[in-house]
């Protein structure tokens, strides 16, 4: 069994060499010039989260092109170019951590941007904290990521609890007979946190939690849970998960004849693929989201002076509507530049302090970090699929439709 050790050793060495070469060539070569702000970004460009990773990549490219077309950014009296160095971590959490370390030690980046999701952000935050490098997380909203007293981690999404309180209050107002909610969440960082948060918010709003269960990652069938939800007789079904779970869940609710006047699927309707995958069944489904392009902020600092300007640039470039991932990530890049400008250099400790003191309005909304470094809560939109459109139900300042109950 130990035959031909040399051949195997040579083959192994060759494989390692090839793999390293592939990794190196995948990254754009870093510029070592003095006046460049280097931003590191480990992204999930292949694997399960590839769609989300590509959203981040594309919006940052749009942002970067605008910045560099304007000649760069003014920092402490000189002009700096901005460069984003990215690696594909293939939706593998362990690899994300390794690449974050490589970006810091090999590529000498000044700051890092976190990838999609609370789980992977948490892994990278542990690395950046060790090396004391500022990390901006634009798609991590679970408080469990931020409650570790990390000094260098900042997030542009607001805490989940803000979303569930407002939703419970709104639905109670729109459907005064609302008595029972069934909560069914995916056992994963963000979806679980939303489900837990909703159970608390519903109880506080005087709604009985008639069913409250989690389903395992990789669940391919929800019929058992849906049969139990049917028996519970809830008039509000609240399901959390990723798009494929929610499509399957909504379809099985229909297949098994479960009806409720309110069906919420977090954050299904925020994604076009949810409505595409469900067709008519998506009609009436509600969700919370952190941002919607119907919001209208003007006089913003950063690359885009208003939500409208961002929307226009984005739709011109990509021929589709931006969602909260695009908006939050582009705004995070603005926040980062703002902090470097305030700090007057790329010194990591100074940038961190400037980030902590951030209080600015971006096209995405106001950004001010709370004690745990998450963006402070504001009125986050509640949206509903109505026909082929996504309508905003809340807050009143940007609402463009009345809530419809599912018949």
């Amino acid at each position, binding site marked *: 069994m130990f035959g031909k050790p040399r051949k195997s050793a040579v083959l192994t060495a060759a494989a390692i060499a090839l793999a390293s070469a592939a990794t190196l060539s995948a990254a754009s070569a870093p510029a070592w010039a003095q006046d460049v702000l280097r931003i590191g970004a480990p992204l999930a460009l292949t694997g399960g989260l590839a769609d989300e990773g590509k959203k981040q990549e594309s919006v940052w490219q749009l942002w970067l092109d605008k910045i560099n077309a304007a000649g760069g950014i003014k920092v402490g009296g000189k002009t700096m170019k901005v460069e984003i160095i990215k690696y594909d971590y293939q939706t593998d959490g362990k690899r994300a951590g390794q690449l974050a370390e490589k970006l810091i030690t090999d590529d000498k980046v000044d700051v890092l941007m976190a990838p999609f999701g609370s789980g992977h952000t948490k892994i990278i935050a542990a690395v950046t904290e060790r090396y004391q490098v500022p990390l901006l997380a634009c798609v991590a909203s679970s408080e469990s990521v931020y409650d570790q007293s990390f000094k260098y981690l900042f997030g542009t999404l607001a805490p989940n609890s803000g979303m569930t309180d407002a939703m419970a209050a709104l639905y109670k107002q729109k459907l005064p007979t609302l008595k029972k909610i069934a909560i069914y969440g995916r056992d994963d960082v963000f979806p679980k946190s939303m489900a837990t948060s909703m159970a608390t918010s519903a109880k506080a709003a005087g709604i009985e939690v008639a069913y409250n269960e989690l389903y*395992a990652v990789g669940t391919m069938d929800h019929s058992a849970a849906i049969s139990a939800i049917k028996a519970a007789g809830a008039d509000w079904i609240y399901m959390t998960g990723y798009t494929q779970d929610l499509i399957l869940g909504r379809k099985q609710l229909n297949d098994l004849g479960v009806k409720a006047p309110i069906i919420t699927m977090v954050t299904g309707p925020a994604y076009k693929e949810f409505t595409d995958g469900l067709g008519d069944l998506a009609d009436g489904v509600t969700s919370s989201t952190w941002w919607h392009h119907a919001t209208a902020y003007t006089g913003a600092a950063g690359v885009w002076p208003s939500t409208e300007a961002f929307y226009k640039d984005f739709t011109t470039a990509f021929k589709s509507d931006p969602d909260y991932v695009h908006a939050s990530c582009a705004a995070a890049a603005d926040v980062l530049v703002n902090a470097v400008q305030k700090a007057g250099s790329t010194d990591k400790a100074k940038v961190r302090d400037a980030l902590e003191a951030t209080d600015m309005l971006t096209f995405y909304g106001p950004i001010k970090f709370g004690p745990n470094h998450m963006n402070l809560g504001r009125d986050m939109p509640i949206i509903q699929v109505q026909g082929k459109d996504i309508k905003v139900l809340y807050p009143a300042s940007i609402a463009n439709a009345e809530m419809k109950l599912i018949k």
Partner: protein
Amino acid sequence: MDILQILVNGLVLGALYACIAVGFSLVWGVLNIINMLHGSFIILGGYLTFFAWFYLGLNPILALPVVALVLYALGYVLQYIFINKVVTSPVLTTLTLTFGLDMILYNLMTVYFTATPRRVTMDMGSADILGVIMPMDRVMGMALAFLLTGLLYVVMRASTIGRAIVAVRMDRQAAALMGIRVNRIYAITFGIGALMAGAAGAVFAIVFPVTTNLTGVFLGKAFVICVIGGLGSVPGALVGGLALGIIESFAGFVLGPQHAMTLGFVLMLVLLVVRPTGLIGVKGYE
């Protein structure tokens, strides 16, 4: 009523599970290859069906035979060119090779099709029989699962190719001496495994969202089903699939959906200890 509904849910799900596992079981049983590509084959079948429906308006049932044949050709070529080179090596070698091929196929699909979940949105409604609700698309999936596994069973028992496959499994050398072209039989077997995966993918495109995120889930299910049902026989996959479907359905209702999958794995572990051949597997295939 509840118990009957849960039983029906489990049976329908179980038939779909059987559909996943039958091709995987055949390849594992006959070629002694743990085919890591199986989950990606199913998803590829799902994508092809979706595209045929979306761009050409082709009904998934009509697309099924075409998709299955495309997958057969792909499986045949992959086995003939790559896997046959190492087919007699220890199982870890073939596993690593199919794992590598799977990484390529999986990432090609993610790059070109994206991981966005897609579904054939032709809702067929549900039938209500004595208060038990049966979604028609799943019932149709179940019928197709029985039909396909039945067809494979007949092919394996009654056709020359089927007997040649069994002969090669029993004794490679003796089969070669009898004039069977072993490498060709290997390629055909792998092709049939891929064909069954493609057919399963076509059925699934109606029932589940198609996304590359699910390849690992399908592969994991196939693995559990084969261990529960037993390798080396078509009915083994059917029994394993049905058993897993019913167990998950009852566990989901009684213990909560969080523990439904755990119970399937617990059963697999117990069977590995007390009955390695699985429920109805053939001795010598474990």
